[in-house]
């Protein structure tokens, strides 16, 4: 089902073409065309309700589209059978909005979870990998804490460690800085940038931290009305004189949510 990898990655980690999805009479995705290049951070922004989260749920294969194509690492996934999806899923790590740590487990068990469940590594190898990954996100020594004992920022870090521990090629982040103050937001942004470079990841980031998030992004896709209205490098997108994008940006920068939302 999945063609053997010849070692070299295709230029696009994820390639989306004419993706459509409706819920009842509500058309949420109206023909998305999006490229997520390999080894770069691509940030998806847009007013609430524009379909960012639904798009991400298609990229991480939680939802299936009505029509259109998604290629992940060169593999067309929209028509794969359910059992074949797992092989694709192992290529990516996902950081959920609220972290989605298992609250019945310690930080160590949370981070070790993908390795314990999906690999045949020995306990010692797993422990070494968990310590290394926790160190990389700045949580060394927190192994025995429970998620409820961590601050919001630390929970995000632990969740990031869990998303990275099986060495994915693609990292997906759903609003990683929701609920964090500006200092912690900047710290998480830095961390995302550093891990992306250290692990040489292709990253997709859904964010509302506009324009702060642009400092760590390579590419930006602006979604509006269920379509990718504008995409390109940060400089290209910021330099465009697209009216809708400018109004969205102005609404965000002034802290006036309504101006941004009411496009």
């Amino acid at each position: 089902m999945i063609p053997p990898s010849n070692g070299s990655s295709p230029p696009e980690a994820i390639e989306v073409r004419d993706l459509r999805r409706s819920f009842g009479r509500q058309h949420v995705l109206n023909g998305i065309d999006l490229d997520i290049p390999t080894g770069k951070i691509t940030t998806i922004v847009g007013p609430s309700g524009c379909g960012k989260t639904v798009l991400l749920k298609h990229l991480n294969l939680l939802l299936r589209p009505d029509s259109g194509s998604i290629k992940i690492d060169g593999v067309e996934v929209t028509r794969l059978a359910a059992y074949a999806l797992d092989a694709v899923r192992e290529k990516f790590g996902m950081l959920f909005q609220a972290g989605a740590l298992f609250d019945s487990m310690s930080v160590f068990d949370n981070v070790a979870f993908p390795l314990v469940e999906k690999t045949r590594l020995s306990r010692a190898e797993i422990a070494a990998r968990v310590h290394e990954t926790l160190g990389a996100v700045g949580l060394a020594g927190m192994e025995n804490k429970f998620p409820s004992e961590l601050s919001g920022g630390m929970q995000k870090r632990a969740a990031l460690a869990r998303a990275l521990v099986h060495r994915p090629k693609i990292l997906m982040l759903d609003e990683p800085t929701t609920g964090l103050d500006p200092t912690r937001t900047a710290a998480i942004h830095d961390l995302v940038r550093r891990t992306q470079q250290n692990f040489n990841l292709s990253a997709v980031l859904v964010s509302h931290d506009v324009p702060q998030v642009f400092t760590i992004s390579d590419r930006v896709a602006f979604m509006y009305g269920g379509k990718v209205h504008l995409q390109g490098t940060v400089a290209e997108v910021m330099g465009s004189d697209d009216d809708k994008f400018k109004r969205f940006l102005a609404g965000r920068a002034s802290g006036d949510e309504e101006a941004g939302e009411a496009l």
Partner: protein
Amino acid sequence: MIERLGALILDSVFALGNFVLFLIIAVVYALLPPFKPRLIIRQIRLIGADSLFLILLIGTFTGMVLGLQGYNTLSRFGSEGALGAVVALGLVRELGPVLTAIMIAARAGSAMAAELGSMQATEQVDALTVMAINPVQYLVSPRIIAGIISFPILTTIFDVIGIWGGYVVGVGLMGTPSGPYFNGISGNMTGHDITLGLNKSLLFGVVVMWVCCYKGYHAERMATGVSRATTEAVVLSSIMILAWDYLLGSILL
């Protein structure tokens, strides 16, 4: 009007289909590898071991009430000697399986619905899927197996402690001779009565876990959704326990 009625019927049929399909999927995944005995044992502890004290307490009081009421009624006909049989048959055939199941639904089933519901609300279930772990196989199947194992054991404990509760009241307080109490049990209770009770408890084990997991798993992703799922899980479990109890009783008699 007719359109709305049709939509309502269609929705109900779909909901019922999903409900049944949920159980079938969970059972199929329970039979497929990878097997996780660790998860089953953990659930047996939560459902079984942690409910033990409650079951002992309720079992004792149920037996005592049966002893008291049974004695009062039987003594009017001068047949106090049948007290043991009345208490034991009532417990083994009906009250043991039913009350055990309702108590576990209220204690462990509600907790289960709330746990799965909040896991859904905080995207922990999605996280499992994204990590290529089937959430039904990981969360639901072990609970159903644990229910099948725990319910008959707890029911048996309930029956035994209930018979002793009846003994304490009937023999200890009311003064029925103890010989006829136990002779009445061994003389009147057949293997069929015991099998009926255990079959009921097996079925209730599946029903309670099925309903509570389904309600929790399909909870709306918010706090009110979780609380509603918990309430519905207990109410629907209790209704299904009593309905199946009647059906099974009338079929197997």
